[in-house]
């Protein structure tokens, strides 16, 4: 517990709204070790932003415990703020300040000595590719550059942990890729621990540890490989025509563990490819359903998410067991 850089147990956050009480975070637990890139993955409204805010002490914690670098979120909020960097979802840095002025502002606010600033700021700006834009007003930067500036400002005081709340929302793929590469380089260079939230399932693949969250609850957490291992069997994909009959035909077949709809394709989880593929093909043929090749594909995070959420919602036992726990 002490080595964990970010830690939460049974975290609860409720919002009182007139007469209703909304539970945004519902007994959530997580742990992040030093040097990890942790991804909190879940759709809008799942509670990602709220979780980050409670961890950082920006919101009052309703119940449970949480700490960063051993400092409690509620009782030692200022020490946490001195040692962490944060890019909020809104990511609105003072627009009327130039890039350089912004950097100095955040450096001063964190008590970084002027001499140190003179050395570190140019370095950081060059690293993030903002070296030529020092006098550009922050409000006039492109979306991708604004994110980079936010990243630079969040790192100027050399924090050990950085929180990023949906940092790549709406950003074009090239900039997104660049941002991720930048982040990873910084993590390696400076030994950072990164905690990020994202609704993009594919970004999970870039994290070392992942937590899937829905409606304030942690469904499962672990490495990407561990989570995918929770998926039943192997995944077959094909395009049937007509669609609905194909779905109905396949569902009751033996060895079919799960069926997911993917646009005009069907995703079928089977226990064994060699035996089930021909069986499915035969069943479809007998119904006069046309289809292309049944390909085996690698399940992605999104398939995992859907499968796990469905099981979570339908299991009478409640949550699917988390697979990493605290045995690190």
């Amino acid at each position, binding site marked *: 517990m002490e080595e964990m850089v970010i830690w939460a147990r049974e975290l609860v956050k409720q919002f009182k709204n007139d007469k209703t009480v909304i539970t945004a975070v519902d007994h959530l637990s997580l742990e992040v070790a030093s040097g990890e*890139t942790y991804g909190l993955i*879940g*759709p*809008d*409204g*799942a509670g990602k932003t709220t979780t980050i805010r409670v961890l950082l002490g920006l919101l009052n914690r309703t119940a449970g415990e949480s700490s960063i670098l051993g400092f409690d979120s509620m009782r030692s909020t200022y020490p946490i703020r001195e040692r962490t960097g944060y890019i909020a979802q809104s990511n609105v840095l003072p627009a009327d300040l130039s890039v350089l002025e912004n950097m100095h502002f955040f450096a001063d606010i964190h008590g970084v000595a002027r001499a140190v600033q003179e050395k570190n700021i140019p370095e950081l700006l060059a690293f993030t590719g903002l070296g030529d834009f020092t006098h550009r007003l922050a409000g006039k930067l*492109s*979306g991708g550059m604004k994110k980079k500036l936010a990243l630079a400002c969040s790192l100027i005081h050399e924090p050990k942990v950085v929180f990023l709340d949906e940092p790549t929302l*709406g*950003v*074009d*793929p*090239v*900039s*997104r*890729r660049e941002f*991720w*590469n930048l982040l*990873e380089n910084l993590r*390696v260079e400076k030994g950072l621990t990164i905690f990020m939230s994202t*609704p*993009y*399932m*594919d970004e999970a*693949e*870039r*994290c*070392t540890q992942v937590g899937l969250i*829905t409606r304030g609850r942690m469904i499962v957490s672990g*490495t*990407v*490989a561990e989570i995918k291992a929770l998926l039943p069997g192997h995944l077959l994909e094909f395009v049937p025509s*007509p*669609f609905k009959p194909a779905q109905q035909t396949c569902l009751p077949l033996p060895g079919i563990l799960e069926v*997911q*709809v*993917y*646009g*005009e394709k069907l995703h079928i989880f089977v226990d064994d490819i060699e035996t089930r593929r021909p069986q499915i093909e035969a069943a479809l043929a007998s119904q006069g359903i046309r289809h292309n090749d049944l390909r085996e*594909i*690698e399940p992605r995070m*999104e398939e995992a*998410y*859907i499968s796990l*959420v*469905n099981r979570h919602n339908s299991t009478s036992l409640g949550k699917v067991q988390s697979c990493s726990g605290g045995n690190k």
Partner: protein
Amino acid sequence: MIAGSSLIQKQVSTPPVVVENLVKRFGDFVAVDNISFNVRAGEVFGWLGPNGAGKTTTIRILLGLLKPTSGKTYVLGLDSNLQKKEVHARVGYMSQQFTLYNDLTPWENIRFYGGVHEMTPAELRPRIPEIIHMAGLEGREKAMTRTLSGGWKQRLALGCAIVHKPAVIFLDEPTAGVDPISRREFWELIYQMADEGVTVVVTTHYMDEAELCQRIGFISQGRLVALASPAELKKAQMHGFVLEVTASNPEQVVRILKTAAQTKQLLLDEVALYGAQVHAVVPDVTVYKERIRALLVANQINVRSIEWIAPSLEDVFISAVKFPAENKSV
């Protein structure tokens, strides 16, 4: 009321959506830079691009909401700019902000949109329950729209967009902010409509969603960068192959490979860390598998596996942006 589909029969030779050499400038800024493409009847077409790339501008021009600087767009054979009203009557549009009225019930929302499209009460009477059923909102049609969750609102918004049985529908980022399960269900609806002959154009900035389309047009900085089905794009557009390296000390692997790329020792592209694995784009699979393995082993790295993996759409997109000279449309 079957006006939409009969039009399809009549104009089966003309694609329902045509964009011809479209250019749109806002002052000095070129938002759309000479784009041409068609959408086939009954197709689910993805219009993909990051925010600010020009995709919303293109849609607005198609809908007659903006005038093109030059070039032409046609919907169902009608000129978007000169025959706006006719286009509006035959097209459904679901905008990003839902355009649902939160203090009306679903029933009232559908009725409102029916009225907006000049449907008579006689036409509306059977249609509203149809839409409620399609959206799965039975039992909820008299609740306040504000109380519905994101996924339900989306289905309702879709319903409102098709109340007048349009032959072509434009959906602007329809599943933004919606959880993956609701998104899948929503897409089931889309494909059902496509089955019935409706042409669907979906705009999105979300790569994963684009995979669900039958054909995709990529737009980046105003230019059409690629136009093909997801599978074809991955095959034909990708400039190189993606290798996945699983080894001890992934961070060190990244450093080694990047240095090799910089010194041109190995022709590598896009070396990046993916969790505990390293991805690199190479020009040849067999040759490079060996070369990379050799290099890593020489650096005392324990290599567990090097595999050729399928590129994601994002890989393809980035590759297409970097090397735009290659095949543009299929």
